[in-house]
């Protein structure tokens, strides 16, 4: 039998990321970012709630979405082969990539074969995951991001912090400064009288990018869905930058994760209701493009699709964890998460932040690194993410599952393991417990209502982020005995 697929190599940007609590601590100190995030996530939560409430059979839709993805994931080999056949029939060329390096090499070679020094890009999580832009730059090919938020991130030499709105951590005046400083260095400069009004900023992006759209020979996209039955690729967007890239250049290369497949055309009836309402909180996003290979006389005449694994088969091999592959990257879980709202996306050490990142990264990349080991713990397990997820991914269940994996992998000889063993010894004998409890009362008398002094080691770290309740004046046993003898209980 074949071996389980390998984990994904952590991409260079995120190698050596500190564990979540450290990264989150510095993010929490950024009050501007916290204000930006609180505002933005609040707005989008309200919008989502309003449009979801318009759909009476929303829960049935969620179930239908989950069922469609489970059907695909359970028979992924069959559906991938069917998708490849349909794509090929439609005139597309299908490539397969085991990992990021292989995918990047395929794309670089295709771009070089066209003989161009630049490409325009549609926002795509898959290409961020494989760090395609860096691979292209290393070969002297400029990759222009055309989504407004991606443009802000790229011009700001910054990293995305949200799946849907990568520049969610930036406010309008920061964006104006970035545009004024950077646009002129890579193309048409921002207008001299640019204000921080969103309408003016959007117009500056329109003017800046139009010349790039008109001259580009190659576009690179991801895909939201790939319909196995018809070989149709679907890209959902708002601004029209996607349509520009998918329509104007002669060559189109789409990098698609193998879990993006939908079984049938009619499944789009479910997913096109779930995705827009969950992600931007709209009844429908402004533009959705669908193409099935090459369409004679309309759009790109050289159409390539790169199907990537890059750790996905590793996730698929875990019977509990595999439901994370249902994810359609809507980001509803980010917007609803109290931890994400405060810590922001950068602390998660991956292009996939928030609750979904906390279950995807440790599965895609394994738990060899500090940050990936810490992510399953970056949650209060409040469950808001599960409620919001249109694919019914039980994120809290998966977090607990992954916590168990992380702890098991560490073995028992850790501070936590020893503390738990000591606890077990203590609770196993009533007299020991009684003595220990008396000790805590004594400590309470000494401390009064002050917090205990900082402790060294693992316990100190745990307490560093938590307040412990005041220690009681008496234990339950002391109280019980003080009630006087002769009571049999159960009467008062």
């Amino acid at each position, binding site marked *: 039998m*074949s*071996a*389980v*697929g390998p984990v994904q190599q952590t991409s260079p940007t995120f190698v050596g990321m500190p564990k979540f609590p450290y990264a989150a601590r510095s993010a929490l100190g950024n009050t501007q970012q916290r204000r*930006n995030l609180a*505002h933005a996530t609040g707005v989008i939560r309200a919008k989502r709630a309003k449009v979801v409430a*318009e759909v*009476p*059979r929303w829960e049935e839709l969620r179930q*239908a979405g989950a069922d*469609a993805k489970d*059907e695909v994931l*359970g*028979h992924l*080999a069959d559906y*991938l*082969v069917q998708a490849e056949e349909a794509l090929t029939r439609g005139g597309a060329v299908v*490539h*397969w990539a085991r990992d990021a390096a*292989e995918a990047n090499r395929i794309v670089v070679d295709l771009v070089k074969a066209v003989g161009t020094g630049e490409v325009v890009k549609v926002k795509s999580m898959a290409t961020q995951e494989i760090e395609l832009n860096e691979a292209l730059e290393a070969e002297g090919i400029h990759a222009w991001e055309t989504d*407004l*938020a991606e443009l802000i991130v790229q011009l700001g030499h910054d990293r995305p912090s949200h799946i849907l709105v990568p*520049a*969610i951590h930036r*406010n309008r005046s920061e964006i104006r400064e970035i545009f004024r400083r950077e646009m002129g260095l890579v193309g048409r400069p921002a207008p001299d009288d640019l204000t921080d009004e*969103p*309408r003016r900023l*959007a117009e500056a992006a*329109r003017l800046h990018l*139009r010349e790039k759209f*008109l001259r580009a020979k190659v576009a690179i996209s991801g895909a939201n869905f790939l319909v196995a039955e*018809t070989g149709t690729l679907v890209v959902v967007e*708002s*601004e*029209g930058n996607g*349509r*520009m890239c998918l*329509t*104007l250049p002669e060559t189109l290369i789409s990098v698609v994760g193998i879990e993006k497949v939908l079984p049938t*055309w*009619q*499944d789009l*009836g*479910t997913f096109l209701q779930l995705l*827009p309402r969950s992600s*931007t909180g*709209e*009844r*429908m996003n*402004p*533009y959705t*493009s*669908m193409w099935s290979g090459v*369409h004679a006389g309309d*759009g790109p005449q050289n159409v390539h699709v790169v*199907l990537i*694994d890059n750790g996905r088969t*590793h996730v*698929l*091999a875990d019977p509990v964890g595999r439901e994370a592959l249902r994810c359609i990257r809507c980001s509803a879980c980010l917007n609803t998460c109290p931890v994400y709202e405060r810590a922001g996306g950068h602390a998660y050490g991956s292009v996939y932040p928030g609750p979904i990142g906390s279950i995807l990264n440790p599965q895609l990349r394994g738990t060899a690194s500090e940050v990936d080991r810490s992510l399953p713990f970056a949650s209060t397990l409040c469950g808001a993410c599960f409620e919001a997820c249109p694919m019914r991914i039980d994120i809290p269940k998966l977090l607990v599952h992954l916590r168990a994996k992380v702890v098991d992998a560490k073995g028992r000889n850790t501070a936590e393991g020893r503390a738990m063993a000591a606890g077990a010894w203590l609770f196993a004998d009533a007299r020991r417990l009684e003595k220990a409890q008396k000790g805590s009362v004594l400590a309470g008398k000494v401390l009064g209502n002050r917090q205990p002094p900082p402790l060294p080691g693992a316990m100190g770290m745990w307490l560093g982020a938590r307040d412990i309740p005041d220690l009681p004046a008496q234990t339950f046993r002391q109280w019980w005995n003080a009630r006087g003898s002769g009571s049999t209980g159960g009467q008062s």
Partner: protein
Amino acid sequence: MSAAKDAILARVRAAVTDLRAPVGARGDTPWVDQASAGVAETVELFVENVVDYKAEVVRVAPAGVGEAVAAALTAYGVTSVVVPDGTDPAWTAAVPETVRQVSDDGLSSAALDGIDAVVTSSAVGIATTGTIVLDHGPGQGRRALSLVPDVHVCVVAADSVVHDVPEAVARLHPQAGMPRPLTWISGPSATSDIELDRVEGVHGPRTLHVILVEGW
């Protein structure tokens, strides 16, 4: 190339050996619809939702399309309009001579960028979402035509408006052998990337003007 394919398919198969259900075990693709109160109500809902996206909607009888097209082009002050092959000549008959009419004889992207507006028909409208779908058949032009010019005047037949998304998807099932590309349009180009504040008008047409034809 096929080495990678073989390896990935082998990994995929090895990953799911615990699952026993056959392909297609879930049965027919589920169809989760939204009930319509009636044909007239569906059309009203369509108009309401298109307007909610800040698109303009005018409602005319079949004989009034030409006048409505001319009025729209005049109101937006356009000086040129691209007219796709297969457009009903009556729709452009009233366009004033001051507006240059251009047919699509393989216009370059740069040439299209110099044209102010486009007039197209459409394939399907969706009431619950206020969406218009182009399948780029006759009268709709290739995809670039309804993308590059800044004003899109779109003619929608009221009897092409369906109630919800699953019904639209079913109508648009790609024909085997000659699938069409599809463009789903819900209002003018927009972004919420700056503080999640919705702004109409980025790269696609910043003006969407819908002419709804009733009693076709």
